[in-house]
């Protein structure tokens, strides 16, 4: 049975020679590929064919990679399971009755099942790290500004980054080396990463590394997940690292802050889908407001509508100060807590997801419960930091991911620490 990891399967060849020659790569379907349908997992864009490549796609081709298809995803990246895709859910290759995580579930499933050597995902609130953890592979959410977002269909610009998914830390780091670096078409990119060699940092040397474990990230986790997490830390300690508990009270407000900010940005970004320049048309009956509202009713699924409406609400007169402004305060507080933590430790560790992979269909009826599953991943996006999820054992035969968070542009540190987990 197919895992439904791809929305569109088609091969695009890259340059003859390069660091990724001979490698097949799945590209998440919200990243523009010239001449190849890019749907964002939405009926709104089921016929959309970009007239240009995203910067990361140009870089993949230049590096000699072969793109093997566009990976399934939660609609516009809005989900934690890949079940909100208009093209049907992706199954977890480890256990096909389970979700692969999301929103980059197709990317992670393709890599875990060997349908692609590597994949690109995008991470707005955990969308690379969650599916990497659930499928038992490695995923990196880069520092904000390390990788160009040019050609990425925007969901929440201030939070999202494109990043790699791979079977090993070294492979993920090597793919990050290809896509990292400044781009004059994305004004938020920085010079960091221009001449990176993150792959070389995967040397497994954690002698003297200090790891902070925020109690807030571990409390409330599933028992089996917690056991696997502490076992991984004990293993790192045996290799010469030391860990200590730290406190980050702000992260208890992170899920609320994240969803207010992401939904607000989504309500603005997705206003462009009116069915005129691209996307499903609402026809020509009535006036433009009626035609646009019809296109958006037909083109968007429930979760996307829910987030657009909540974002519109949070930004509307009378509620802006209560929700959006307070969420920005919380975002600054989360950053401050991380800054203080990194004065004493080199990396911060947590279980990537507090729970093992959900069963298919389990979480669809209760959106708030689904949002709460992102508790350990969203603080990283709020603070613009890099983080990696690396496989760290199992619970009841299901993969558990260890998340290692680094200081801004500290990709080498998290790659090094994560490579020791593989030892």
């Amino acid at each position, binding site marked *: 049975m197919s895992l439904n990891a791809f929305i569109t399967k088609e091969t695009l060849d890259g340059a003859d020679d390069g660091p990724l020659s001979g490698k097949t790569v799945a590209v998440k379907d919200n990243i523009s590929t010239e001449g190849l349908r890019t749907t964002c997992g939405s009926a709104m864009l089921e016929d959309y*064919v970009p007239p240009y490549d995203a910067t990361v796609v140009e870089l993949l081709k230049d590096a000699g990679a072969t793109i093997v298809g566009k990976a399934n995803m939660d609609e516009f990246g809005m989900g934690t399971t890949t079940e909100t895709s208009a093209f049907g859910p992706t199954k977890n290759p480890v256990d096909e009755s389970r979700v692969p995580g999301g929103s980059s579930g197709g990317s992670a499933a393709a890599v875990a099942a060997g349908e692609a050597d590597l994949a690109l995902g995008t991470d707005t609130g955990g969308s690379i790290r969650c599916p990497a953890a659930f499928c038992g592979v490695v995923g990196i959410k880069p520092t904000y500004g390390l990788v160009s977002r040019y050609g990425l269909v925007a969901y929440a610009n201030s939070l999202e980054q494109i990043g790699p998914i791979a079977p090993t830390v070294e492979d993920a780091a090597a793919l990050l080396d290809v896509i990292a670096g400044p781009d004059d078409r994305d004004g938020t990119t920085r010079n960091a990463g221009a001449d990176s060699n993150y792959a070389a940092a995967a040397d497994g040397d954690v002698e003297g590394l200090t790891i902070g474990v925020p109690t807030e990230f571990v409390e409330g986790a599933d028992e089996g997940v917690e056991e696997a997490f502490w076992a991984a830390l004990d293993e790192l300690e045996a290799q010469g690292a030391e860990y200590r508990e730290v406190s980050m009270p702000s992260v208890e*407000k992170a899920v609320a802050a994240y969803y207010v900010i992401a939904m607000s940005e989504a309500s603005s970004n997705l206003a462009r889908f009116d069915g005129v320049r691209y996307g499903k048309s609402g026809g020509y009956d009535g006036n433009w407001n009626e035609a646009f509202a019809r296109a958006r009713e037909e083109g968007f699924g429930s979760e996307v*509508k829910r987030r*657009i*409406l909540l974002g519109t609400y949070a930004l509307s007169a009378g509620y802006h100060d209560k929700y959006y402004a*307070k969420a920005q305060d919380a975002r600054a507080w989360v950053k401050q807590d991380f800054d203080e933590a990194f004065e004493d430790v080199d990396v911060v560790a947590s279980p990537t997801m507090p729970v093992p992979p959900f069963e298919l269909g389990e979480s669809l009826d209760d959106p708030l419960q689904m949002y709460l599953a992102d508790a350990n991943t969203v603080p990283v996006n709020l603070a613009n930091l890099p983080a990696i999820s690396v496989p760290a054992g199992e619970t009841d035969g299901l993969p558990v991911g260890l998340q290692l968070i680094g200081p801004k542009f500290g990709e080498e540190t998290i790659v090094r620490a994560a490579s020791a987990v593989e030892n």
Partner: protein
Amino acid sequence: MSDTPVDADEVRHVAELARVDLDEDEVEEFAAQFADILGYFDALDEVPEVDREDELVNVMRPDEVRDGLTQEEALSNAAETEDGFFKGPRVS
């Protein structure tokens, strides 16, 4: 439960602002879910004031002419075009 009341009328009003038609089942479902979700967001009331030390600076560059999409490429995904223009619904 949120101290912000959310009823079906409120959902319809926001949907109109966002230009999204909803059917009646969706209105009822969203009203119940929004009460839960906005109630959870009320936790933000307890966030302390934080000094933001980041000095933000605008990053500017001079405008420069470069190749963009051709007119044909720009129109290639439109449902309908006329004389090289996008065709939209009437405005009133």
